[in-house]
């Protein structure tokens, strides 16, 4: 039981980081995206390749993944500078579909559906993190560090500018803010953190393939942010925990015929999501009124 909880805990930490990184875009910058799984995937592939070919160093993998995903995020920054709202969602949808297809087709790099298997256990400062608990601790440490950085940034001038742009772009512009630069930086930071989460995911699963980086995954990450409460620090973590633990808890429902488990669990899951949004539209930890 403990080992199962540790495994779930790792996933919650990784997806908490992922949701927090998307929250930078959705909650603080007002840039809606359903392409976050692409950057998550880029990070995972980067770390997997490094671990398989160079060294399974955790920090190396996480940093390289963050850098690559952050750099690649320019493809999202481009439409984000031109359009807003529904248009941006749809642009990101296009980006996600494109990303999934590239992940599937570029088999030399990603292995396509076959994926990259046998990713070794990560090492940290020369120590191999063999046990699942050690990996959980590492993931938690990175999550806490990221939350700390996000918190500092959002309380500083960068965060204030970002939220000013979110609430009124023209007003921020007339105040002399460099809107394009601030938005691009926010996108790069959010995507970079998603890449870091991807690196952790690659080590956690020790197998990555395109099925983990699909539109469904992007939508799930977004749902974590919204359900937890966009624009709050702890909201995305709560959302990630709820959406990962709910299906796990549902799998403990006794006496379900094996052939019906999937459908019944999914039914409860879907209904819970809808009801939550009807009765707590701002999310679990969101303020009940105000922007977002």
């Amino acid at each position: 039981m403990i080992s199962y909880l540790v495994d779930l805990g790792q996933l919650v930490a990784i997806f908490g980081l992922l949701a927090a990184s998307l929250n930078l875009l959705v909650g603080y910058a007002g840039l809606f995206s359903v392409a976050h799984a692409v950057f998550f995937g880029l990070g995972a592939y980067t770390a997997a390749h490094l671990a398989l070919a160079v060294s399974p160093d955790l920090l190396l993998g996480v940093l390289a993944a963050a850098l690559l995903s952050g750099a690649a995020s320019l493809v999202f920054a481009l439409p984000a500078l031109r359009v807003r709202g529904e248009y941006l969602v749809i642009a990101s949808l296009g980006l996600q579909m494109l990303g999934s297809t590239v992940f599937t087709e570029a088999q030399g790099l990603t292995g396509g559906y076959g994926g990259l298997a046998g990713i070794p256990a990560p090492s940290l400062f020369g120590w191999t993190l063999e046990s699942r608990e050690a990996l959980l601790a590492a993931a938690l440490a990175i999550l806490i560090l990221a939350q700390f950085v996000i918190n500092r940034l959002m309380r500083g001038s960068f965060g204030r500018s970002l939220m000013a742009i979110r609430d009124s772009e023209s007003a921020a512009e007339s105040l002399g803010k460099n809107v394009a630069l601030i938005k691009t930086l926010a996108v790069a930071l959010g995507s970079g953190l998603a890449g870091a989460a991807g690196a952790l995911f690659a080590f956690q699963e020790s197998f990555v393939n395109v099925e983990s980086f699909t539109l469904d995954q992007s939508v799930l990450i977004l749902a974590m942010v919204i359900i937890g409460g966009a624009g709050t620090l702890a909201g995305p973590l709560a959302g990630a925990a709820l959406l990962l633990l709910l299906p796990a808890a549902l799998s403990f429902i006794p006496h379900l015929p094996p052939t019906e488990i999937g459908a019944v669990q999914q039914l409860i899951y879907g209904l819970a999501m809808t009801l939550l949004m009807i009765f707590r539209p701002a999310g679990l930890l969101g303020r009940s009124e105000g922007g977002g």
Partner: protein
Amino acid sequence: MLLLQLLVNGLESGFLYALTAVGFALIFGATRIFHFAHGATYALAGYGFILGERLGLGPLASLGIALAAALGFGLFIEGAVYRPIERSRGAFFTLFVAAFGVVIAVQSLLELGFGRSYVVVSSPLSRAVSWNGLYIAPLFWISLCTALLLFGALALFLKLSPYGIALRALADSRFLIRTYGLSERRLARLAFALGSALTVPGAVLGALSTGLTPSVGAHIMLVSLTAAVVGGIGSMPGAALAGILLGLTETLAVDVLDTAWSEASGFVLLFLFILLRPQGIFGAELRR
């Protein structure tokens, strides 16, 4: 010859895409609700038709069931899900997640009710007939006629009926509608009813030709969204044209590019459109 054949195939799916996309655009234009569960309406309509056929009710009654399923679901989700959320906050993404939950629930219900496998209604209408080497199924002509007929009727309704005019006006200004004393609530229901009904022909033809699975709605949802945006959000002729364009792109990509890029090609087009012409084919600049 191959190109001509691909054009025919592309048009056939294009017409169906156009119908569902126009339904989506109609709902969005009138209510500003981004109806992510539109694909679920399509799935329910298709399975409604299959239910009728399984019960041996004949095609007309089955069509009736499909229509009832689509209308019932459209009005239900408007009243029970979107309306309460709109009233309290109306954030775009709250609606999105709520709709996403509904999509999952509908898919599970279909799996529980109809099993998880592929279902199709066998019919001679889907079998292609050779016209000097060009293979065209009777369904092609049916979808062509249905699409033209429905678009014509819709255009007339929006132009001539007071409700139609009000629906179009709603897209421009909610304020205006209120000052004229029309009920916004009533119009929203009308938009959901019409928009949901427009998924029925596509769903029924889908049940007859390509077949359905409980997860069929996802692809339809993506296509409707894309067409509605490429056409210019809120513009119905734009959505129709973009739907046809998407059908053609998907089909032609099989020959020009590679089959694996068929689905993605439409979205590449979409991405470029948003970068280069965000207002869409017909749309005026829309900012919130």
